[in-house]
């Protein structure tokens, strides 16, 4: 008798709890002045978002349609035409709009394909960082205690290495392939996300809606996934937008030192690295990739700034550190 009764009682309680939970979340969606719809509308009216978005969109289009946009084959060498100047300088011609490198390869095409690869590396690493780092951060922030302390010490250890050294050290022992580049960048940068997410989680978990969800019987996993994560996700995404451009620059730095993927496959980094030997006579090889990165970063920065402004009315004054 008791088993069935108790079982039945528990079932209905759970069902009731489920109803209440559903109501809670629905209410939140209505009350919160920051529902996805209004935020989107606000974002689309924001100048920074429009400007930045346009630039970013432009880049993405060029990247996607690279084979059609690039005038030459980036690997095609032309020994008769080495170190030619860009078209806007003396000695340039419209055959090679941005000049050629030391092996006669068209710089514009190399830049386009290089951007493609650099961006791919960047995107993959940011994806890993956000997923992995945030997951750990939410866990640490939510459970506190030992998990938290371990995480903090671990990130401390990692943050004690200037990231450059870490990346450089890793690349000194691993050969540089696309995979290792992604790995190196991910390993070097995940602690920041873990730290930030942890901070955000701690702020969120003391808020009323979390307590409400717990009272009603939501499991820890559900709370973390459904409630906390969905609330901190916007902030994290905005920061990660900046990092998309940031990782591209990282790759460029490593390439400049000579630790990125080896030629002939072009990346923004190794183009600059190659070019540093010819700075006096062909300064454009090392300089032009930088201009590309400048606009890329500008675009992403504007986009991120604008998005923060559209979302930011929640009063979370997090200083975004680049």
């Amino acid at each position, binding site marked *: 008798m008791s088993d069935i009764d108790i079982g039945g009682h528990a079932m209905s309680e759970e069902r009731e709890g489920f109803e209440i939970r559903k109501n809670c979340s629905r209410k939140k969606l209505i009350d919160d002045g920051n529902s996805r719809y209004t935020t989107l509308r606000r974002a689309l009216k924001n100048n920074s978002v429009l400007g930045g978005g346009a630039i970013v969109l432009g880049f993405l289009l060029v990247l996607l349609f690279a084979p059609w946009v690039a005038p030459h084959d980036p690997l095609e060498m032309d020994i008769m035409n080495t170190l030619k100047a860009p078209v806007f300088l003396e000695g340039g011609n419209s055959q090679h709009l941005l000049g050629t490198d030391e092996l006669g390869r068209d710089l514009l095409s190399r830049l386009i394909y290089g951007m493609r690869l650099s961006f791919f590396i960047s995107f993959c690493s940011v994806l890993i960082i956000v997923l992995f780092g945030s997951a750990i951060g939410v866990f640490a922030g939510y459970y506190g205690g030992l998990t938290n302390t371990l995480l903090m010490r671990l990130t*401390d250890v990692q943050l*004690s290495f200037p990231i450059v050294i870490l990346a450089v*050290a890793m690349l000194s022992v691993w050969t540089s392939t696309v995979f290792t580049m992604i790995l190196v960048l991910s390993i070097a940068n995940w602690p920041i996300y873990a730290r930030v997410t942890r901070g955000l989680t701690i702020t969120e978990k003391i808020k009323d809606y979390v307590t409400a969800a717990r009272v009603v019987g939501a499991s820890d996993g559900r709370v973390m996934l459904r409630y906390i994560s969905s609330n901190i996700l916007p902030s994290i995404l905005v920061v990660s937008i900046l990092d998309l451009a940031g990782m591209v620059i990282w790759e*460029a730095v490593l390439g*400049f030192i000579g630790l990125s993927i080896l030629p002939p496959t072009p990346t923004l980094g190794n183009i600059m690295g190659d070019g540093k030997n010819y*700075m006096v006579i062909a300064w454009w090889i090392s*300089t032009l990739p*930088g201009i590309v990165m400048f606009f890329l970063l500008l675009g992403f920065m504007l986009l991120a700034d604008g998005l923060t402004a559209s979302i930011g009315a929640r009063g979370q004054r997090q200083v975004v550190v680049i």
Partner: protein
Amino acid sequence: MLLYILKRVAQGVAVVIGVMMVIFFIIRVIPGDPARMIAGPSSTPERIAEIHKGLGLDKPIVVQFLHYLVRVVKGDLGQSIFRAKGGGTTTGRHIHSASDTGRTGIEDFEKAAVMDLILERLPLTLMLTGMAVLIAILTAGFLGILSAVKHDTMWDRIVTLISIVTQAAPNFWVGIVFILIVAVHLKLIPAMGYKNFAYVILPAFTLSLSMIPTWLRIIRLGLIDVLSKSFISGLKARGIRWDVILFKHALRSAAIPFVTVLSVHMGYLLGGAIIVEFVFDFPGLGLLTIVSVLQRDFTVVQGIVIFFASIFVLINILMDVLYVYLDPRISLE
């Protein structure tokens, strides 16, 4: 207070040891045999075994680590694999058997002690970083205060524009551009290398540019926030002078978020210094790091990483103490 510092130092030591473990294992557990690289491609197995023994690589890793730990505590960070004592590097062909303490016997060359190498180059890097921080604080401070006080006027917009442009330009690329413009075309300030203080200016300025936009933003936001607080009207109501209000009261409150970010930025600053040194061929610790990594001079890399980690930990502790001193409201926890 003292208890707090001691506690933090203890934690710091733990962190440094952690760092040591990480770098130690990374270098030793990787594919590729350092001994083989030192010996060269055409060497005999006996030679390789000899080098192994010399570097102490024949013992179990944990033992190696403990030996290393003991040495570090004594201040001995080991010896460079390639650099000789008086400068100049070797290809490593003359490395010798080592005793258990890991010191090389002198036969042809005496190898440079890592600690010596570090201490030799430290002053230069300190000069570079110090100058950069100075420039950055002065510039970010001035522009930040200006744009906060003249909030929403043309000055504010100009400063914001400068901030955005400076932030979007990749730091090392700016360095390259500077070198090209200033040294190659204008020939005003020296660009690369180091002979006297003038050689510090350009690299320091470049490095400061990586800090200025963020610091400017924080000072500005912090100041705008503080200036809207009630106690500022309170001070005005008591007839205190405006410049006193700004510099004595407002700035002090705005300094708190600034110092917080500063402590996080120390790491970036060190990293940035490494890159800048590479771009400008500035012979400081950063350049040493990169060159050693490229040469696979593991002991040097190891030593530098540990050194940096210790400095970083120390700076963090100092920042925390500074933080408590600045804000009497927080208790030490």
